[in-house]
């Protein structure tokens, strides 16, 4: 394969991943990394480095739009970033010491979980309690968000548990080159009982900061190759941009199902490749 063909094919795969990732809210990394590894034969760590860069591009590129909606909470995001960035640096450090087949298997397991979550995610609105954790109050994490024309106040629960889940999300992000937005949303929505829309938009802001913490480590270790990262970044960025434009009209339920089937197949393939040492 020539460089020109490689660039075009990787750009197209990344654009599709960015598009689906934006529509489903799960991010493009979970598709880009296995697709590059399995279909294009790219070394897993090159794929992880390239994906991290595209995670930053989508997070920073969409930040303004999310803030304007008035949902994201910068205090919650910043406080939890302490855990995700430290986790990410450790995860990226581990990635250089863990063998590629093992990383492929861990990646497959995370994909299985994402597939499960994207089908059975019934994140209903739960009743808010204004104060249920002394940490939430002390750190002034609570806020308000637009609901039915008013601004609904909310408090934040289970801060220590949420913080430890965020550490795990950061470590996965650094190890696998994904935004791990899914884990972040679970930690905020389910564990800390933060309203879903606040959780998902705050997560978008957090994934870029988390990815930046590990991207620097990958860069210095030589895992960010400009020839691979270039088509991935430009493709994901174009796809995500298009995805946010059509978001309003998309049949989200059907899309999540399609997305789940795609990542389920990728999960099986990743675990199989890892177990047989083909990556």
């Amino acid at each position, binding site marked *: 394969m020539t460089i020109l063909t490689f660039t075009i094919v990787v750009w197209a795969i990344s654009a599709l991943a960015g598009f689906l990732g934006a529509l489903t809210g799960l991010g493009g990394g979970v598709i880009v990394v296995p697709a590059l590894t399995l279909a*294009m*034969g790219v070394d897993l760590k090159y794929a992880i480095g390239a994906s991290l860069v595209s995670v930053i591009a989508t997070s920073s*590129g969409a930040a303004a739009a999310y*803030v*304007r909606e008035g949902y994201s909470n910068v205090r919650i995001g910043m406080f939890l970033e302490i855990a995700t960035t430290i986790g990410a640096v450790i995860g990226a450090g581990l990635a250089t010491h863990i063998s590629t087949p093992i990383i492929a298997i861990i990646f497959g397991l995370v994909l299985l979980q994402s597939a499960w979550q994207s089908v059975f995610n019934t994140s209903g609105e739960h009743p808010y309690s204004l104060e249920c954790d002394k940490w939430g109050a002390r750190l002034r994490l609570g806020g308000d968000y637009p609901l039915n024309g008013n601004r609904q106040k909310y408090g934040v629960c289970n801060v220590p548990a949420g913080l430890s889940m965020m550490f795990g999300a950061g470590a996965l992000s650094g190890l696998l080159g994904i935004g791990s937005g899914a884990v972040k949303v679970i930690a905020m929505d389910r564990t800390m009982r933060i309203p879903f829309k606040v959780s998902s938009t705050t997560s978008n802001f957090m994934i870029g900061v988390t990815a*930046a913490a590990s991207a620097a480590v990958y860069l210095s270790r*030589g895992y960010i190759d400009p020839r691979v990262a*270039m088509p991935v970044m430009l493709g994901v960025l174009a796809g995500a941009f298009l995805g946010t434009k059509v978001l309003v009209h998309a049949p989200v339920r059907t899309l999540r199902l399609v997305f789940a089937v795609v990542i389920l197949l990728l999960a099986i393939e990743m675990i199989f490749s890892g177990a047989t040492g083909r990556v």
Partner: protein
Amino acid sequence: MDDRRLEIFIGNLLRTGVLIAGGVVTVGALFFLAHNYSARADFHTFAMESSSLRSMQSIARSAAHLDSMGLIQFGLLLLIATPIARVALAVVGFAMERDRLYVAISSIVLAVLLFSLLHAT
């Protein structure tokens, strides 16, 4: 300035940063493809990137010489800098609100990011 106005300002700044980074990567990509389009693509096994593309100073130097891979890498470095700039601006924003607790919290995050960037590269 309240949290929200500051956030929108920062959000717009980030998007500008992403567009500039994307522009630099695109220019580098065009140079790169013009010279290397028919070369063989093989990324199957990891070969250590040449040291000129792994540290901040040398990336900036090769980008300044309009080396195509150096330009792409410089664009990627700009992109990695956007979330870091975002946290740095949050420190300033919280300081303007005289919110000492969150100046401290965002400074810790900034310190982790800078440690990772400077210690690694």
